[in-house]
């Protein structure tokens, strides 16, 4: 079995040349070869070609198998961020959009939030990034509930069925993020 590759650019972790002109960074998490973990990759791969040109022109897309603090720390001040990932803790196929600024509080309060297998929970990553940057992160987390994360598996049927709605949710989050970023630069 060979690892699936996708057309999205990889995360330039460790690189120092960050494009400062993009108003929105889309972080696409997950692995294409681990069942429902590839939901965000599939959704974004089918989404990009249909996005309005003005939105595409202000977007930076990064594929990050596991979300890393560096992906948030090197965000330019005027850039908003959308994180897309499959999660557990939600009914399979259910979609949730959570403002990034709310994730740390949900984590701290142990409210039912999407759990993911990142080295640090996403709420902690966002919280540390906000502390290190001295400002809140603008943008949102768009998750889809998954069930099967087995290595070598394809997307499960419920997640495949929810992909159109998931694309819409990501697009809406991108439009909101772009609007937020535009307001900040005015």
């Amino acid at each position, binding site marked *: 079995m060979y690892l699936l590759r996708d057309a999205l650019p990889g995360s330039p972790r460790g690189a120092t040349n960050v494009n400062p002109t993009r108003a929105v960074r889309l972080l696409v998490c997950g692995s294409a070869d681990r069942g429902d973990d590839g939901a965000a990759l599939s959704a974004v791969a089918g989404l990009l070609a249909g996005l309005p040109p003005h939105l595409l022109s202000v977007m930076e897309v990064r594929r990050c198998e596991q979300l890393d*603090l560096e992906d948030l720390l090197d965000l330019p001040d005027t850039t908003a961020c959308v994180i897309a990932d499959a999660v557990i803790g939600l009914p399979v196929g259910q979609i949730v959009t959570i403002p990034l600024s709310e994730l740390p509080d949900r984590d701290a309060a142990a409210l039912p939030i999407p759990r993911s297998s990142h080295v640090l929970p996403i709420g902690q990553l966002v919280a540390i990034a906000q502390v290190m940057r001295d400002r809140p992160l603008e943008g949102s987390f768009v998750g889809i509930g998954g069930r099967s994360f087995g290595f070598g598996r394809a997307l499960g049927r419920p997640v495949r069925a929810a992909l159109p709605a998931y694309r819409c949710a990501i697009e809406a989050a991108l439009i909101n993020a772009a609007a937020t970023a535009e307001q900040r630069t005015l």
Partner: protein
Amino acid sequence: MHVTPEIDAAGDPRPSGPRPGIDHDFNVAYITRVEGEGSLRLRVRDGGVVEARLSIFEAPRYFEQLVIGRTPDEVIDIVSRICGICPVAYQMSAVHGFEDLFEIEVDPEIRALRRLLYCGEWIQSHALHIYLLHAPDFLGYPSAIAMAADHKPIVAQGLAIKKVGNQILSTLGGRAIHPISVRVGGFSKVPTAAALAPLREALDGAVDAAMETVRMVAGFEVPEYHREPNLVSLVHPTEYPYNHGRIVSSDGVDLPVDRWDDAFEEIQVEGTNALQARTHDGGVYLLGPAARLTLSPGTLHPLAAEALAETGLGDVIRTNIYWSIAARAIELLHACAEARDIIDGYHRPAEPRVKWTARPGRAAWATEAPRGLLFHRYELDDRGRIAGAQIVPPTSQNQAAIEADLAAFAPSVLDLPHEEATLRLEQLIRSYDPCISCATHFLDLRVERPT
């Protein structure tokens, strides 16, 4: 340590509830700042520990079955997925085992590049654990978030070091997590010297920052504790152990790197989804930075050896697991300094890998993951495909030592307020930098946060 329900002198079970002021129960349903899902249960009756259990409830992952029928190069890609923090270790134990069976001699520069890749993994893993997972315990914070608010420069320093480790993995492995370049016989592609030049520059800063790290952690206040563990690690006569050496223990084991199972075995233990490991006679042993530093002090990079000597912690690192953070910092410095040396001496090999022919037989090898010895054994059939596999990660080997330390340490915290005592016990577990996901090779993650 698992003890059956205690029996009083008359042979009757004692009341199950703790008696105030005499008995103590410590329960941590969800251990934080470790990788994976686990819990702690400790019961003390009449001042004695009757149960010390680190339960691993993360679901099994079945990787040993997933590789059945696969080719060696496929196995390398698959086993790297066991862990997002130490994928290189899984690749290295597998690739060396196959190369040993196929009698492949790799170019010395390939060997050096593999050490460089391992340096990158140690750098990112050790920096993550020291700064984001473990330091909050010593600086009095409940989390890295709270610590970052007051100690931003410290967190920034840790992140800067970790970033260099990620850079090394990206440059050599194609990506920072789950690298994809390691192949039987070498690499799919090797870098030019020019491609390594930015790493060389970054490593200058990382070496300085790692020295700062050693000084910082050496100043931490650490709980008093003493236990003489049986230590196990690879030992090599001329190099600090990553990929080569012999399996050596402080109580006299000295085995070829492919014969782990001559002295050790895995056992099933109730209440945990991870197999544990013991010596054949049931003995508990300790892996990881403290074991490596103690068994291989002579092969540390001179900068790391000097830093260790300056701390004066050489002896207590061996006997007080809380000082593992210092051992980890010394190894962080070693990895940064050795990575820099490797790049300085690098000459690109003519070919990225040598040709090979598979053969049936037993492929086995152990390497040193950041958390300790990682053993792989594969049986290959006549087609050169995997017919059987055994993967023994360091956390499942350390699990019994963690429980032994919990049992030994607990009596010393019984006079503390319950919350503080519980925190000390959690801190002890974090001293091992356990990677619970590795220990279970989990396949489906179905754990949900309690509402």
